[in-house]
């Protein structure tokens, strides 16, 4: 504490309090944003709930808002969203978990240094580029390979979403497995277990809650995804529940795709408009529930680490085993019966025989062979992911390179973008991103400083943190709808650069809060205490002692945010973009942006294939460039900083 004889004491206290207030406001902005999103969605969804009734809206079997009579049944759309997500998880979970285990336990450091960036690269591919790839390659492949009428199906959506969820699940699951205490692993190995036995019996069970959280986060990402799904799922007009429910070759319509297609065309203030906000509200509630679940599980994991768990046994071990065996037998028989009805007796007998042989072979295999087999399978998951990444990159680079030249980068589009360049879109994207980061960086950094430096953990920090988590889980299309309702219509900004910038800023705010906080956490407390002990105020300490070494970490967060903002389409679709050959000279004018330009070319301008691929390549390079800078910065920072 400074002594009272200091002449500047009063003004210093005043300034300190002023700064504290500003930081608090920055932190509280996350709460305000999430509340206004929920408020505006609810306000605009309310009329339709009033007119149709919530139950009828959710359980209605047909979505036909422009028919006579108009029908607002969201049920098939909800089912569509869930089915696509389930399919995506069936693809993403085995691949992600396999690669997470491989990265954390099997790969050599050198191999790790190749695989990890590759998977992060996958995270850097914008949704609309996935959609573009899916639309041109994947749907055609499905249509010809399986000889179905159209390739725009549930399967196509699930494959794309599965690939997109892989980076999220892999990185969180890998963290969980890596953070299992070393003693567990060493103890298991010392007892004579093989590496595979250690992984299977010790590491994975211990990391289970982290892995569960990873999967749930992946589910959240898949449910909220818009552009890719919109482009490859076919979108049957009334929403369609597959017949039978397992028919993956049925076109499907999801909540997000419905919003993406219909929002741009609907008359504001009509029942259809309110109904779309009703869908957005349902979507938001589903994703928020999923994200809260993940947060709770991760939170429990943190608590669990602190205490030793003692399991209580309700039944004696023997009864428990018998009960389990009975359940397994029951499930097994049901499945065989199902198989019998679906595939006929011959295939059923064949499959059962194969399974029985596998069972006996497994008993005969030594642990060493089992380990080799398991490692082979784990390696195969990594190879699969790398091949997928390779195919996507090869396609986009191979087709995009011929379009790339100086004129393409410096000229405006002509003939609806079939010829000419993409200069206005590049500039538009840069404008959007610059504005978004200019708004989000002060708010996010301020919030993180407030959370970590200025308060103790309590109710307020819990609320702010929860708000940031919720914001992080909010689907990008919901930001778009909110931006449209609030900035474009309510504040009368119209389709404008400003509306897009603020909407994007809100979207990347949680990323910046989180990465800044991580950077602050890594600064040891001793140097803060040293500064305070020398008589510096809180703010002087923060500004001169804490922030400089945290700067690279904060910068990494900012660049990750930039990358995300540059690649997103859904938030700007209804707030900022127009398809034009034009560079705005005021923030109240609309812009063209790379993701939107690509989306429009790929879905609306026949005969623009070369420029589509060229735009995709430029967008990809831009976003991946940002991510690459962030990754390099992070690894440099991690290597050089030692306390």
């Amino acid at each position: 504490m400074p002594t009272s004889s200091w002449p500047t004491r009063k003004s210093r206290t005043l300034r300190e309090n002023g700064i504290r207030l500003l930081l608090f406001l920055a932190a509280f902005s996350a709460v305000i944003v999430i509340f206004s999103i929920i408020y505006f969605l609810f306000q605009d969804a309310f009329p339709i709930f009033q007119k149709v009734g919530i139950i009828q809206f959710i359980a209605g079997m047909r979505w036909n808002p422009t028919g006579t009579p108009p029908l607002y049944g969201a049920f098939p759309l909800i089912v569509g969203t869930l089915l696509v997500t389930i399919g995506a998880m069936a693809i993403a979970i085995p691949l992600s978990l396999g690669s997470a285990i491989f990265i954390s336990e099997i790969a050599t450091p050198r191999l790790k240094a190749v695989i990890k960036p590759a998977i992060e690269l996958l995270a850097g591919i914008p949704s609309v580029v996935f959609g573009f790839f899916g639309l041109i390659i994947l749907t055609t492949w499905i249509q010809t390979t399986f000889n179905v009428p159209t390739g725009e199906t549930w399967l196509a959506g699930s494959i794309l979403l599965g690939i997109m969820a892989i980076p999220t699940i892999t990185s969180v699951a890998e963290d969980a497995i890596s953070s299992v205490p070393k003693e567990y692993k060493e103890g298991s190995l010392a007892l004579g277990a093989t590496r595979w036995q250690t992984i299977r019996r010790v590491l994975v069970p211990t990391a289970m809650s982290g892995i569960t959280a990873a999967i749930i986060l992946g589910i959240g990402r898949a449910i909220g995804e818009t552009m890719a799904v919109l482009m490859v799922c076919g979108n049957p007009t009334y929403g369609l529940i597959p017949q039978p429910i397992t028919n993956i070759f049925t076109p499907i319509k999801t909540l997000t795709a419905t919003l993406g297609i219909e929002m741009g065309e609907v008359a504001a203030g009509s029942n259809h408009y309110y109904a779309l906000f009703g869908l957005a509200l349902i979507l938001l509630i589903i994703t928020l529930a999923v994200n809260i679940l993940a947060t709770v599980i991760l939170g429990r994991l943190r608590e669990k680490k602190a205490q030793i768990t003692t399991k209580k046994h309700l039944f004696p071990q023997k009864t428990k085993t018998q009960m389990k065996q009975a359940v397994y037998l029951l499930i097994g028989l049901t499945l065989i019966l199902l198989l019998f009805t679906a595939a006929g007796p011959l295939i059923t007998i064949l499959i059962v025989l194969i399974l029985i042989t596998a069972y006996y072979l497994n008993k005969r295999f030594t642990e060493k062979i089992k380990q080799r087999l398991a490692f082979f399978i784990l390696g195969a998951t990594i190879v699969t992911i790398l091949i997928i990444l390779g195919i996507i990159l090869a396609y986009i680079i191979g087709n995009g390179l011929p379009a790339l030249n100086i004129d393409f980068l410096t000229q405006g589009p002509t003939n609806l973008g079939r010829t000419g360049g993409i200069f206005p879109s590049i500039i538009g994207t840069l404008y959007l991103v610059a504005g978004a980061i200019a708004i989000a960086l002060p708010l996010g950094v301020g919030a993180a400083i407030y959370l970590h430096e200025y308060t103790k953990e309590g109710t307020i920090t819990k609320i702010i943190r929860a708000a940031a988590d919720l914001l992080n889980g909010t689907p990008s299309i919901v930001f778009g709808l909110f931006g449209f309702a609030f900035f474009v219509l309510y504040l009368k900004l119209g389709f404008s650069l400003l509306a897009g910038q603020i909407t994007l800023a809100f979207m990347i705010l949680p990323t910046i809060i989180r990465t800044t906080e991580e950077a602050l956490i890594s600064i040891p407390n001793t140097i803060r205490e040293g500064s305070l002990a020398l008589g510096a105020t809180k703010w002087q300490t923060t500004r001169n002692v804490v922030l400089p070494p945290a700067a690279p970490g904060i910068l990494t967060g900012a660049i990750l945010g930039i990358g995300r903002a540059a690649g997103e389409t859904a938030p700007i679709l209804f707030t900022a973009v127009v398809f034009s050959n034009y560079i705005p000279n005021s923030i109240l004018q609309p812009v063209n942006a790379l993701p939107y330009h690509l989306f429009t070319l790929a879905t609306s301008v026949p005969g623009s294939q070369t420029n589509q691929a060229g735009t995709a390549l430029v967008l990809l390079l831009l976003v991946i460039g940002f991510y690459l800078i962030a990754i390099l910065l992070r690894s440099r920072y991690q290597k050089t900083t030692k306390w």
Partner: protein
Amino acid sequence: MSQHTTPPHRKNIGIVLLTLLLLTTLGVTMFSGCTQQQTQGTSIVLIGRDSASGTRDFFWTNVMGKTNFSQNLLEKNSNGAIQLTVAQTPGAIGYVGLGFIDATVKALPINNVAPTVAHVLDNTYPISRDLYMFTKGNATGAALEFILYIQSTEGQAIVQHEGFVPIQNTTHYSNAGKTLSGTLTLSGSTTVFPIAEKASTSFKTLYPNLQITVSPGGSGAGITAVSQGTVNIGMSSRNLQPSETTLGLVRYTIGKDGIAIIVNPQNTYVTGLTLTQIKAIYQGQITTWNQLQTT
């Protein structure tokens, strides 16, 4: 390994076997659906516009007689998207404006009348409609000049060049003594979009100080945007709906368009359709191309 450790081991194998069984069951049921479809002959894949589109509204009113579309209708968000999908999908059928016909798709004669500009002009082609621009109140300034330009001989040449049907008896546009600056914004119908985009490029050469933006989005979006003042001109391929007549919008006709029915070039089943057949197809009563041959 001693025999005592086998029970938990066996339990794990049980789980693995069950998962495998589950996966194969799912796999088989999923793929059985696909083999069933193959035996039924070439299915028709219905492609249409989304529910707020002017083209869809017109098609629904004039071809479907306001009856429901089949639930298998796949929605696309623009005319171009329909054309792209039909070009990619062998069994597909779709409807687009005349301007979107090219070599990648096959446009079918309807009631034996080919979808051409000439047939729309002499009123023999059964499905055609006017294209509009709307302004809030009477058009003034740059909006008025732009609409006059599109309605002029020069503008109508663009309409025709884009494959649409021009207005007859037009006069030349002159910018003598006029200067325009500031911005002019248009949004709306994806059908009108190419016309407005091309016209804006040549209009800009007359008034270099004027900035023009044209964005597609659909007729509904254009009408909403112009009525709320977010754009100067709303483009539409349909007339105002009853709910929109009170918005104070003024209508300008800028051309005409026929709706063409397009199929994939590989499609050898049909060479032409009747309106009744089209209706039956889009209602979902005819689901395979073979069915169409026998009827």
